[in-house]
């Protein structure tokens, strides 16, 4: 009876070892496949979905740890979820890339009119400030403070416009438009403070 039990235990152990060994190959393949899929989207994901990429990288590391510990069954159980996560990461990064490209194209289109417009606003303000600086009295509605603010505003607008132009020259029209809009808003506010609306 005792001999039979030992024999049965030995048989069970052999079956278990054989079963584990049979799962090693598919587990290795699953890890390699996940690594390959992640590598193909890593650069794009790094740029457009970095947080989501971090979560997927953690899942990948967990899978590798299971593999290193010989937990092939665990690897095979977790692999489908990781494959799914990589697919979703790719979709999210692709969508955000398309969104960024559309925004860039829109900004590029808007840059042309903006780059013609804003310098003219600044020139008009410069002209008025130059003349008001020679005036013995300021016109009704214009104070010394508003004239001083316009003078310092001109300096900051020229600096910001230079930054916007540099961004546009390097192809970053989104940044260029953001800076240009800020200059335009400031110019509009200064023109109002100097009473530069037509009558």
């Amino acid at each position, binding site marked *: 009876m005792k001999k039979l039990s030992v024999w049965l235990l030995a048989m069970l152990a052999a079956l278990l070892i054989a079963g584990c060994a049979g799962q090693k190959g598919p587990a290795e393949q699953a890890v390699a496949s996940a690594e390959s899929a992640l590598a193909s989207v890593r650069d794009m994901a790094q740029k457009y979905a970095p947080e989501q990429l971090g979560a997927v990288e953690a899942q990948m590391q967990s899978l590798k740890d299971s593999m290193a510990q010989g937990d092939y069954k665990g690897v095979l159980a977790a692999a489908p979820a990781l494959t799914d996560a990589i697919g979703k990461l790719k979709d999210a990064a692709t969508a955000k890339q398309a969104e960024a490209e559309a925004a860039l194209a829109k900004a590029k289109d808007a840059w042309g009119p903006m780059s013609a417009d804003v310098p*003219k606003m600044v*020139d008009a303000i*410069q002209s008025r400030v130059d003349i008001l600086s*020679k005036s013995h009295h*300021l016109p009704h509605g214009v104070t010394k403070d508003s004239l001083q603010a316009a003078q310092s505003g001109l300096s900051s607008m020229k600096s910001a416009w230079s930054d916007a132009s540099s961004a546009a020259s390097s192809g970053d029209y989104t940044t260029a438009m953001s800076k240009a809009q800020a200059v335009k808003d400031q110019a509009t506010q200064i023109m109002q403070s100097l009473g*530069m609306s037509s009558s």
Partner: protein
Amino acid sequence: MADEKTPAAAADNPYTQTHTVQSGDTLSKIAQKYYGDASLYTKIFEANRDQLKDPNRIFPGQKLRIP
């Protein structure tokens, strides 16, 4: 962005303020209104040389650039 504005630049600039001449206006009165100083009327005259030959002769309805 030029530091000194020329009359030609003012003419091309849609952001240059304009004033429509009313009956009784003079360039001095207009300069007083926009600059607070009547003696600066020459700035308006120079900016409108394309339509003004004489600073003393302006007409109601004329649209003057106010640099």
